[in-house]
């Protein structure tokens, strides 16, 4: 018989299959052969060279540019809830199933955000370590900070979508964006302190988010 876990994984696999099909429509074998593969190879070659010596053009890019990258990256985060329209009918009297699907979805989003944040920081690591003078632990803390901020932003964006409409939604989104910008402007030494407060907001948002959906 079908279980909540089985149903959830079926939806994840179905979602990935859909993404793959969308990707396949944009990238056929010709595009892959002449654009994607050569550019990937060039990027890997550049990336390896950045580990040997920081590129000269970094002298023209201040550390504050990092703020913009982090802000855009955190803002692009979202929390995908694998609840479908038909659940409203099929699981109408089974709130426990809906609740578990939402919990699994939140867990999935956390793991996904962790993976993409790690990837971003791995790409930025040679610049941070060799050019901007970060220590290894500094990069690790920055990764944790960005991950928590991104997760928090994803939850906040979903909550705004649920609770607000029209121009009020736009105002609330702008306020959240400005607050995020303020958080991102925090100096490197303050990251741990900011991270604590963001984490605390995140936990509260998570609880509110679940109660709002169920």
């Amino acid at each position, binding site marked *: 018989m079908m279980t909540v876990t089985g149903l959830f994984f079926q939806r994840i696999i179905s979602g990935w299959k859909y993404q793959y099909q969308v990707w396949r429509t944009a990238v056929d074998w010709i595009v892959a052969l002449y654009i994607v593969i050569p550019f990937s190879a060039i990027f890997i070659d550049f990336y390896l060279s950045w580990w040997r010596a920081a590129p000269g053009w970094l002298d023209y890019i201040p550390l504050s540019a990092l703020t913009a990258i982090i802000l855009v990256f955190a803002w692009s985060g979202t929390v995908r809830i694998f609840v479908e329209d038909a659940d409203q009918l*099929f699981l109408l009297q089974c709130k426990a199933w809906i609740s578990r699907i939402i919990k699994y979805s939140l867990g999935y989003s956390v793991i996904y955000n962790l993976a993409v944040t790690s990837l971003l920081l791995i790409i930025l690591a040679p610049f941070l370590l060799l050019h901007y003078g970060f220590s290894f632990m500094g990069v690790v803390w920055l990764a944790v900070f960005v991950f928590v901020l991104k997760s928090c932003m994803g939850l906040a964006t979903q909550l705004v979508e649920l609770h607000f409409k029209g121009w009020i939604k736009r105002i609330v989104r702008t306020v959240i964006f400005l607050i995020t910008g303020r958080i991102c402007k925090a100096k490197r030494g303050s990251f741990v302190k900011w991270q604590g407060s963001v984490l605390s907001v995140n936990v509260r948002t998570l609880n509110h988010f679940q109660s709002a959906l169920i």
Partner: protein
Amino acid sequence: MELLNVDINHAGYAGNKDVIKNVALSVKTGELVGLIGSNGAGKSTTIKAIMGLLSVMDGKVEFAGESKNYAYIPEQPVLYEGLTLWEHLELAAAAYEIERNVFVPRAEELLKLFRLTEVKHHLPSTFSKGMQQKVMLILGFLLEPSVYVVDEPFMGLDYRGTRDFLAHLNQARSNGAGVLMCTHILDTAEKICSSFVLMDAGTVVARGNLMEIREQCQLPEGCLSECFDKILENN
């Protein structure tokens, strides 16, 4: 014995909070209550309010009976894109904790009744509207609830489908289930319903069995549609 008791002060949507007002009805064991009215009278909104699907709802909905469970069969079939018909049935059985040894013969019997056995491993998203409606009916009957809430069930159903649906519904009623059926097809409603709740402009304008409705509109020999017209004129 009352299986469903509804008393709605007002209900609606975020943009229009008073789509329906002062709607009260009840469904007893073995009863088929027809919730009837013209397009836009508030029938489907009432059903949604009963199902708890509206953002604005001031009122009380109580399901009684032994199991206190119900099946909702919507006007528009709502199905999962990626699940086969059999997987839909398995999901419903798992969610409502129907034992496998009960589920399989019951599901097979219903598939046979509605002539969908051959397509049970196909995706319902590829079915016709009528076939999708049959899937919704099978899912409703699979749960064997004490109350059936059915919204415009005849839309898209062929003659045989309608006949089989009504036969199975009568069997469920004889086993003690109650039915609330929303429809605007008055001829059929007059033949099959044991009592009626007439709605217009978001509120109840008349209720009772056909005799009582005839008395209310003073048309002793009138059919349901004539009584309904008279009541609307008087209002």
